[in-house]
C-alpha cells in the first residue's frame, strides 16, 4: 500500500507514529557497544591494583561488532533506524564513530570516566535512563564483554524496561507478529524461540560476517548526530554498585609450566623428546 505523506503532516507525531506502525517492516534498533582493551594489548595493573593502567590501545568488544552488523542487516532488510550507545570516557566515542561509518544512523555517548567503574546493574540503569524518551523495537548487545565478562547487562536492561529477552542469538527473523530467534545452547544444540516486540537480544559472535567501513561511510559519519549524556543527567537513575572489585591481580599459576627454549629447531627437538618420554604420545 502506498501512503502519501502531505507536507503538513510530516511533522505530526501522531501521524508519524501511525505511519510507523503501518509500515510493518520498520525496525528501530539500539545497539549497546563497549570499548575494551585490544585483544593482544599487554595489560598492566595500576599502582593500587584496582584496575588496569589505561594507557593501552582499545577496540570494540568483538560480540558488539556482530550485534551492530546484525542491526545494520535487519535495517537493510526491513528499513528502519540503527542507533548505537556506549558509556565511558572520551576515547569510547571511537567505537561510535566506527559504527556510524559502517552505517548506524546516530549515536548516544554516556561520557564520563566514572561509567567504566559501574557494575552491570548500574550500567543498564544508566542506559535505560538515557533512552527513556526513545521508542525502540529491538535492543542488541554483544553476549558478553572481553573486559569484565559479566554477560549480564543486556538481560538486566530487558528486566528494567519490562521487555522479554533472549540470549546468545545466532539468527533473527522478523515475523508477522514479533520475531523468531535462534538461540545457541551448549554442546552444539540450538533452539528457535518466538517472541514479541519490543525485545532485548544478546548476540553471539559469528552470527554474520562483519563489514568494513567504506570511505564514503567514514565521510558521512562526520555529519551524523552524536548525543552526549553526562553522568549528572543519569545520576538519579543509578545507585551504589552492588558488587565491588576489591582488587585485581595476576592469576596464580596452578600448573608448573616448563618453558621450551632455543631456536625453532632446538625447540622442536626438545618438544618431541617430551612428547615421547613424558607425554608418551609418540
Amino acid at each position: 500500500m502506498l501512503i502519501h505523506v502531505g507536507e503538513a503532516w510530516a511533522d505530526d507525531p501522531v501521524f508519524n507514529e501511525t505511519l510507523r506502525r503501518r509500515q510493518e517492516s520498520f525496525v528501530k534498533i539500539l545497539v549497546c557497544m563497549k570499548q575494551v582493551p585490544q585483544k593482544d594489548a599487554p595489560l598492566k595493573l595500576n599502582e593500587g591494583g584496582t584496575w588496569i593502567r589505561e594507557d593501552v590501545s582499545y577496540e570494540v568488544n568483538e560480540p558488539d561488532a556482530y550485534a551492530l552488523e546484525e542491526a545494520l542487516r535487519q535495517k537493510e532488510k526491513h528499513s528502519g533506524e540503527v542507533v548505537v550507545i556506549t558509556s565511558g570516557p572520551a576515547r569510547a566515542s571511537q567505537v561510535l564513530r566506527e559504527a556510524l561509518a559502517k552505517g548506524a544512523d546516530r549515536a548516544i555517548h554516556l561520557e564520563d570516566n566514572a561509567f567504566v567503574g559501574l557494575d552491570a546493574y548500574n550500567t543498564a540503569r544508566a542506559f535505560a535512563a538515557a533512552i527513556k524518551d526513545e521508542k525502540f523495537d529491538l535492543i542488541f548487545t554483544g553476549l558478553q564483554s572481553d573486559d569484565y565478562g559479566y554477560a549480564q547487562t543486556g538481560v538486566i536492561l530487558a528486566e528494567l524496561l519490562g521487555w522479554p529477552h533472549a540470549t546468545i542469538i545466532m539468527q533473527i527473523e522478523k515475523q508477522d507478529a514479533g520475531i523468531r530467534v535462534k538461540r545457541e545452547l551448549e554442546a552444539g544444540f540450538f533452539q528457535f524461540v518466538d517472541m514479541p516486540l519490543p525485545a532485548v537480544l544478546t548476540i553471539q559472535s559469528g552470527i554474520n560476517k562483519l563489514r568494513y567501513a567504506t570511505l564514503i561511510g567514514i565521510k558521512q559519519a562526520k555529519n551524523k548526530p552524536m548525543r552526549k549524556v553526562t553522568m549528572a543527567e543519569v545520576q538519579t537513575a543509578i545507585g551504589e554498585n552492588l558488587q565491588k572489585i576489591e582488587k585485581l591481580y595476576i592469576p596464580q599459576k596452578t600448573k608448573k609450566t616448563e618453558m621450551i627454549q632455543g631456536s625453532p629447531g632446538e625447540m622442536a627437538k626438545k618438544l618431541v623428546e617430551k612428547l615421547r618420554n613424558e607425554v608418551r604420545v609418540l
Partner: protein
Amino acid sequence: MILVIVEQREGKLNRVSWETLTAGQAIAAETGWPLEAAVVGGSVAAIAAEVAGKKVAKVSAVESAKLEPYTPDSFAAALKQFIESKQPKLVLMPHTYQVRDFVPKLATAMGRTVISDAIGYKKEGEKMVFTRQMFQGKFVADVSFAGDAPWFVTFQNGAFRGDKVEAGAAAAPVETVAVEIADGVVRNKPQEVFKEAKQAVDLTQAEVIVAVGRGIKEQKNIEIAKQLAEALGGELAASRPICDSGWLPMDRQIGSSGQTVAPKLYLALGISGAIQHIVGMKGARTIVAVNKDSEAPIFEIADYAVVGNLFEVVPPLIEEIKKAKAGA
C-alpha cells in the same frame, strides 16, 4: 542459609550441578551455614530425589506446569517467589547458558546482583569474597557484595570437582513447592531443542588434538596445523573465531559453545586462551601451547610453553615428529 539451584534440562540433571553442590558444601563447612538445594521445572521429583542423596539439609522441587519448557520469564518468576520465601544468604548456580539467560533478570527483579562466572571463593572474616577472571583471564579479581543478601553467584564450569560432592548419611527430605505463575508472565515461545547437521567428528574421543586459534592468521595457514595433527595421528580442532570465520567447520570447535575434550595431548597453536576456550580443554592431561605472546593466558594452564612464532616452530616440529616415528 546457602541455596544451590541445580540445573535440569529435559528432565535430566546437568552434571555440572554437582560442581556447584561441591562448592556449596565447602562454603557450608567453612561458614556453618546450612545448605539446601532446589531444582526447578515442570515435574522434577526424580531429580530432587537424586540430589537428596548428597549431603544437603533439604531439597526443594520447585514446580509449575509453566516451567516446562524452560523460559527466562517462568524461571525468574518461580525462583523469585521461592527465594523470597526461603531468604537464603547465598544462592549458587552453575554458569551455564541457561543460568546466564535468566539469573541477571531474577537478581534484578529482586534488586540484587550476581557475581557471575566465579572460579573460587575466600572467607575474609565475616566477608565472602569471590574470585572471577577478567580481561579474558589475564587477571583475576576479588569481588565482594556491597548490598544486602541474597547474594547470587554463578560458578564457572570446572571451578570445583563434581566427583568430590559428598554423599549424605541418609537421604535428605524432599519438599515439593508449587509456584504460581500468572498467565501472561511467559512471553517467549520456545520450540524444540535441536542439533545442527550431524556432527562428523567426535573430538571427545581423540587422544591427541592440535587446535588452532587467531594466531594462525589466514585460512591457508590451517594447512600446517593439519600436517602437524596428521604427523601426531591426532584430530584438528579450533577456537571459536576460526570456526566463525568458516576456516574450519563448527563441529571442530572446542569451548563452551563447542565440544569439551580431555585428550592425552592438547597442542594449542596461536590460541590466546580466552575463558570460553579454556573451559572446553583444561581437562587435557598435557597441554602444549605455542604462542608468540608470552603473557597469553593459555600459558597459565600449559604444561609446556613455547613462546615463539608458530610458523617458525611448527615446520621443524613436524619434521622431528616424523623422524621420531620413523625411528620408533
